[in-house]
């Protein structure tokens, strides 16, 4: 019987109350993690030997940059699911993730500029890491613009899914750009295969902020998917479920 329950969840109107119930948990998790991460990053972690306090931008910059790529991968995954199984909810989840992914991409670029000036003496350079991250922003914008340009939501699902999947090639290019090209941008800060080179408090502050960003992204995407479900499921007989939002 579990397969039946699973398919019921794949119906947008059935997913709506689950999304609504999950939001407070992920929001609270994001708030607690952000408070802990900011405390570690701003008050506990020592100044960097070379960069002084300028490096503290890392606690925003690295989580934002990770999320900008990770959200795109998740978005492309849901696009692939929606193309393969023709499920509305998968397309709606992709649609809900795009603005948050774009927001984190803007944050990664802006905080990168604010870090680049004191670290390298320039806000921007056309190196491979920064240029490919800028292309990621244009891919998010292109995905959203294409959706908005097509009136029929199901056609918009398919067209934007194809665009998102083609654009996914950019994600490994961003990630490996610092290895493949000689970039102004430094190499990876954290590696799974080698011992950490950062102070323990710096590293844990950065990882906790990354989890905070992760929880935030889930919470805000689950909020946005509720809006999308209500916008698109015009024929669903909504019960009192919706009234909570306009009390």
């Amino acid at each position: 019987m579990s397969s039946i329950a699973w398919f019921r969840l794949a119906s947008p109107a059935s997913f709506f109350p689950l999304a609504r119930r999950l939001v407070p948990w992920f929001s609270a998790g994001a708030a607690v993690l952000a408070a802990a991460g900011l405390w570690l990053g701003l008050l506990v972690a020592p100044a960097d030997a070379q960069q002084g306090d300028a490096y503290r931008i890392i606690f925003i910059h690295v989580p934002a940059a990770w999320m900008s790529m990770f959200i795109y991968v998740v978005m492309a995954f849901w696009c692939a699911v929606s193309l393969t199984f023709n499920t509305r909810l998968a397309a709606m989840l992709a649609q809900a993730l795009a603005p948050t992914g774009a927001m984190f991409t803007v944050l990664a670029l802006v905080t990168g500029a604010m870090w680049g000036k004191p670290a390298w003496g320039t806000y921007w350079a056309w190196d491979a890491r920064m240029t490919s991250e800028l292309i990621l922003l244009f891919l998010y914008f292109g995905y959203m613009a294409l959706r908005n340009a097509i009136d029929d939501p199901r056609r918009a699902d398919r067209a934007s899914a194809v665009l998102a999947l083609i654009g996914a090639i950019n994600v490994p290019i961003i990630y490996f750009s610092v290895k493949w090209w000689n970039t102004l941008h430094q190499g990876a800060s954290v590696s799974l295969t080698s011992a950490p080179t950062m102070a323990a408090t710096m590293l844990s502050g950065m990882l906790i902020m990354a989890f905070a960003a992760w929880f935030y992204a889930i919470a805000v995407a689950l909020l946005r998917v509720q809006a999308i479900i209500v916008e698109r499921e015009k024929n669903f007989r909504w019960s009192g479920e919706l009234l909570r939002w306009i009390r």
Partner: protein
Amino acid sequence: MNAGGLSEFVAMGGYGFYVWSSYAVAAVAVAFEIVAVRARIRAAVKSALRPDRAVSVPDDTQ
């Protein structure tokens, strides 16, 4: 925090402008997104519950 207290904390060793503008941009972006997405849900719900579109809606909130 070091012995220098609040002013030293704000100064960030001379990098205060870069550090705090990064944190401020992040805070503003997150706050804006939360406000915008909640407004979007309310607009969608109001539209879905308009009398000309909606079926009768039992009020279970009271």
